[in-house]
């Protein structure tokens, strides 16, 4: 029962049957793009709802509960409101860059979304440098934040943007190195092969035991910093900077920043799941015969990691900007470098735990 395989394959075959090859390729790509845009919007809105609901439960509140069942449509109503709002901006803003910034942010997160595998063969873009591509693309987003903060002609925005620049540059390293630790274990940069390696020998968090766990912890810390969420939300630190880099944005432009933040969180959680928790693999291979259920397992694990990040956010105070850098350069980076060596030694000596 290979539904997921057959759906994509059937559409593909049918398109190439009725049209000429170049035209069919274009149509196919457009279809995929539309599917991803729809997923982007829906997942973003759902995550906003989830965040608000979970935050409410941490804080002894109810959260959104009026629009739709359990307030599910609250974020859709909010999005509609934002769409209908007037786009205002400061007079002396650099208009071109000011309008460009939200697109940078949103395009970066969309591109990263395209390489995520939702299930076996249910994978839009499986290139051989998949993980590398993810790291490369996810760091484009910060350009949008820098541009937005700078072009707003607002000092608070500028401070936020500058903080974001140094934060992303620093934590990119840790994300990259902790991913590299796993790549050492997997022996490949291609996402489908990384997952295949886990199918053969167990999830990497078990297979790589101690160094993999250290790498996972560092990845979660650095990933939270990468997505600019508390306790690393220095760039929007509302008690210090008002709203940080997006202070001067309104309406849909603001919503782009807002949605991109949540999609970035989804992406970081997805990378974590792919690298450490076996992507769409089911625990102990219980549903291996039904690849479609891979989507379910993948989303379940991703939501679990997202919940962990939300838990961080609603518990911890915010770091100060110099402590942010101390944490990265004095703690995470040395540990990470040591960890890579440890992992290499373990792989070399064959000390991994294999089922």
């Amino acid at each position, binding site marked *: 029962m290979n539904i997921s395989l057959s759906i994509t394959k059937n559409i593909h075959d049918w398109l190439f049957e009725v049209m000429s090859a170049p035209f069919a390729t274009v149509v196919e790509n457009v279809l995929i793009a539309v599917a991803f845009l729809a997923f982007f919007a829906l997942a973003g809105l759902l995550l906003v709802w989830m965040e608000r609901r979970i*935050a409410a439960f*941490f*804080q*002894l*509140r109810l959260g959104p509960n009026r629009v739709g069942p359990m307030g599910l449509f609250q974020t859709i109503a909010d999005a509609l409101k934002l769409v209908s709002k007037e786009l205002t901006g400061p007079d002396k803003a650099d208009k071109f860059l000011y309008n460009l910034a939200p697109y940078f942010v949103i395009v970066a997160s969309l591109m990263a979304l395209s390489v995520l595998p939702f299930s076996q063969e249910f994978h839009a873009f499986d290139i051989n440098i998949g993980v590398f591509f993810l790291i490369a693309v996810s760091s484009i987003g910060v350009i949008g934040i820098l541009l937005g903060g700078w072009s707003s002609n607002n*000092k*608070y925005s500028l*401070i936020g943007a500058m903080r974001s620049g140094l934060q992303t540059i620093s934590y990119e390293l840790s994300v990259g190195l902790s991913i590299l630790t796993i790549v050492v274990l997997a022996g490949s940069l291609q996402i489908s092969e990384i997952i295949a390696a886990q199918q053969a020998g167990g999830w990497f968090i078990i297979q790589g035991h101690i160094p993999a766990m250290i790498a996972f912890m560092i990845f979660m810390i650095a990933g939270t910093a990468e997505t600019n969420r*508390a*306790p690393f*939300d*220095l760039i929007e*630190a*509302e*008690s*210090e*900077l*008002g709203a940080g880099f997006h202070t001067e944005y309104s309406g849909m432009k603001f919503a782009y920043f807002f949605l991109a933040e949540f999609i970035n969180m989804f992406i970081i959680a997805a990378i974590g799941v792919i690298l450490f928790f076996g992507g769409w693999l089911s625990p102990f291979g219980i549903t291996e015969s039904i690849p479609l259920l891979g989507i379910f397992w993948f989303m379940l694990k991703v939501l679990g990691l997202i919940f962990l990040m939300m838990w961080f956010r*609603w*518990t*911890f*105070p*915010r*770091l*100060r*900007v*110099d*402590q942010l850098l101390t944490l990265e350069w004095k703690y995470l980076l040395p540990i990470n470098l040591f960890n890579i060596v440890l992992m290499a030694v373990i792989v070399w000596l064959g000390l991994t735990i294999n089922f």
Partner: protein
Amino acid sequence: MTTTTENNAFKSQEYFINMGPQHPATHGVLRLLLTIDGEIIKNIDPDLGYIHRSIEKMCERDSYQQIVHLTDRMDYLSAHINNEAVCLAVENALGLEVPERVKVIRTIIAELTRLASHQLWWGVMGMDVGALTTYFYGFRDREMINDIFEETCGARLTMNYNIPGGLMFDLHPNFVQRVKDFIAHFKTKLPEYDTLLTGNVIFQKRTQGVGILTKEDAISFGTTGPVARASGFSCDVRKHHPYSAYDRVQFNEALFTVGDTFTRYQVRIQEMWESMAIIEQLIDNIPDGEFKTPTNAVIKLPKGEFYQRVETARGELGVFIVSDGKKNPYRLKFRSPGFSNLSALKKMAVGSKLGDLVAIMATLDIVVPDIDR
């Protein structure tokens, strides 16, 4: 501030930013003119007056009973203590002896007010350093105190329960039980405050060694309350000049020596424990008797100058009345704790980072209507 030559392009520049009057961290309409070099604060210039309502002038117009309700609107988080200050000043000037029952009730409610104020401060302190959840935990416990106030005094914040000569009406029959329930509840919740925020490594790193105010500076700036006690300046009016029922209760003055943001935090946490101890000593033996001493409908103070000080949640509140023998004061001056504490802000925060300023402001526990009056 434009760069004209090429060499200037890489020089660091100082720039101004306006923190407030509409800023989440200034807790009201306080405006700080900051000179900043990158993230480091070079100068702070507080700009006051955005919520000035000329309460002192209005007091000159009103009779002594009417003055009391205006003091609710100064430091609204210690409304009862402000009321008490004016009432004590008037009673002392008249030479009026209030019943024992009144003294004890006033003390209990004052300590409950202090607890409520510190609970709100704790929530906001957490929020200012970025932990948003503390806000709701602080408000959960404060809600119980507000309910006690609402049942007995009729209002949650601006209670106006005191009148010169005593209290407006007697305690509600449920009062004692509710206070006991609250103390039992809060004794389990206050340790939770510690595990959630005090012990947190990020919070400690954010606050320890930041915004240090030495004892000499604390005295010379005239700071009082938790801000001064964190620097080792023993200034608790309840200890040094006891009023109401404070002379018959045992409690420790929360005194620390370091004077940084973290000790200011610790002083308030310890004060919550002390307040609970004071309430526990008094709640079981509230003496019977009248709840007010009758006064004339028109109170006329003798000619002269009268001063009364009390310890609010923020520090020492002084009430200075100049009377010319009429039914309203000739001049009335409030010495508000927030104003003096704010004056030390520049000393504490210059040289630290923007994020530190927010934490320092949070431990000053500023209530802007108290500063501006």
